[in-house]
């Protein structure tokens, strides 16, 4: 089982537990308790989304690092090498922006890039104390992350 399936399984266990309490509260007309558990499920979504995205960030960092290392050492031609030298410097001093790393691995402006950007914006929003600005379905996140994990190549 890969890490996203593993996290997805734990996520579902927690979400299902909260969901059961939520529907029981609704059945009894306990509106406050129902709202409380609805909120808990939202927070659970956020927590697991962040957890999954950090795993994905690690993957992007790893394969973009490998790509840069290969490019820097692979070209004798200065005209090609100069751009990679600059990128390599940014990598080394940790100033290479995450989305620029993504742009090294998938065409900028196209579907995958745009989707990762949307996820990244959500991650930043939650990470800086906000909540989801748009709804996220964790099963979709898992499917997307697994696909990105497999498809993104240096």
């Amino acid at each position: 089982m890969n890490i996203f399936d593993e996290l997805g399984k734990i996520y579902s266990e927690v979400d299902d537990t909260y969901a059961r309490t939520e529907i029981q509260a609704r059945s009894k007309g306990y509106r406050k308790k129902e709202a409380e558990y609805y909120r808990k499920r939202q927070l659970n979504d956020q927590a697991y989304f962040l957890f999954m995205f950090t795993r994905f960030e690690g993957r992007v960092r790893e394969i973009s690092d490998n790509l840069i290392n290969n490019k820097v050492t692979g070209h004798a031609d200065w005209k090609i090498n100069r751009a990679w030298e600059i990128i390599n410097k940014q990598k080394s001093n940790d100033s290479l922006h995450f989305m620029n790393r993504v742009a090294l691995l998938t065409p900028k402006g196209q579907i995958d890039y745009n989707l990762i950007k949307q996820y990244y914006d959500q991650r930043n929003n939650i990470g800086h104390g906000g909540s989801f600005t748009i709804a996220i379905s964790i099963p979709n996140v898992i499917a997307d992350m697994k696909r990105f994990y497999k498809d993104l190549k240096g």
Partner: protein
Amino acid sequence: MTMQKTVKVDKQHVEKRIDDWKKRVSDLYSTIEIWLKSSNYYIKRGSKLKMYEELMSEFNVRPTEVDTADIYNLDNKIVLTIKPRGLWVLGANGRIDIISNKGNYTLVDFAEQFEPPHWKLFNSDKKNGVSFTKQLFFQLLAK
């Protein structure tokens, strides 16, 4: 790889999407109502949920409400609750939660904007989503 379709997003577009969302939710309830005819269950539209998503705030669209629904058995006990969770979903066209005593199922519309919905159901067993059909719905009720 194809480029994404560019859509002009303005207040009118956001309002049109909200109307479309409410219609898809309402149509879903109507479909379920038809499915449940002559069964041991019935559907009742329940309390409303506040809807105020990011784009609504961005384009000065007033908060609105969207219907939830409950499925009851003949003992008048709720067996499923249906709650629209959000219209603007990454990679999809809306999310609805179907909550039961066994846990939560997520219904996601994968149709393009303003196209007839293509609902897929997810839960921990159905990671890739399966088309939401009458048969599947009765399986949820039987759990």
